[in-house]
């Protein structure tokens, strides 16, 4: 079992590079493809959907709804099965 951390990618926001979790589209146990939307996040100017960089099974949602997350922090963990 190879578990990968999915981190908040670079959003480019100057104000601390932080976004708030709005809503998770997936639950632990869900099988997903690379590119599937994982969650929606909010910054001051838009909602962003964050796609999965890998295919696999969701192991753990690390960031909670309404939580503020910095760029580089872990959002969730995915078992890529390799």
């Amino acid at each position, binding site marked *: 079992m190879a578990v990968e951390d999915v981190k908040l990618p670079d959003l*480019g926001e100057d*104000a601390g590079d932080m976004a708030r979790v709005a*809503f998770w589209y997936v639950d632990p146990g869900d099988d997903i493809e690379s590119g599937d939307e994982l969650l929606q996040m909010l910054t*001051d100017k838009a909602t962003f959907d964050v*796609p999965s960089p890998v295919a696999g099974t969701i192991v753990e949602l690390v960031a909670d*709804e309404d939580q503020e997350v910095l760029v580089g922090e872990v959002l969730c963990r995915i078992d890529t099965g390799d």
Partner: protein
Amino acid sequence: MSKASESATARRSPFPPWLRKRVPTGGEARRVRALLAELRLETVCSGAHCPNLPECFARGTATFMVLGDTCTRSCRFCAVPDDPPGPPRDAEPEAVAEAAARLGLRHVVVTSVTRDDLPDGGARHFARTIRAVRARLPKAAVEVLVPDFEGREADVATVCDAGPDLFNHNVETVPRLYPAVRPQADYRRSLDVLACARRLADGRDRPRFTKSGLMVGLGETGDEVRAVLADLREAGCGIVTIGQYLAPSKAHVPVARFVEPGEFADWESEARAMGFAAVAAGPFVRSSYRADRVYGECTGGATA
């Protein structure tokens, strides 16, 4: 997305569903950021919290912002801070040219903060930057997005003499909303700046077009927007961009209305019918969003 998540999204997000972006994974963003940091360059993308930044940086594009990252005005729509600015950096024009070359840009956009503290408003710094970029990238299109130089024609001429392909100056909003949105600016003065640049192009091959942009969703009426478009045409403006105003913070002017994508499409048709050579209208459109493609529309794709 399932129905359940659609309604949950509607409850949680302050933005309408069409104001949603996908964060691109991969692409050039990391390289762009590293390059900007190395050359100590600012972008309006970052300074103004543009929601298109991840997309544009991933494409390897950015709009350089020169003359510092703080502004001598306090426009109520803008995220750029209004702290006292420092002296212009001598090496900056070359640094912009270096960055543009290393990014392999074919269309280079340079903007600035407003520098009312400088006698020429930064016009010579713009001119040096245009020339530095031209020297490094002779085939690139150069677009400048300038402040109003407090209406001084000599400073507009300084910029135009350096030969930018596109001279962009934003009117930003309709005249009635200037006191609330852009209190230190003047609508007529901005139109005069555009008309001046257009006049200076007579008998020369540059600037090829003048360009202006406005934000909607600030409380303007359709007729007011129509009147601005007509004024821009009368000033000889060839390109217009129209995008949704988004408030950078609670201290800025609040969003009056989220304009629907269909309405932007209507503005685009109307503007084209008024004779603009190119129009970009959409919720996330900004003055230099995909500037290369917008310019390509005017030139029939015949850009370098």
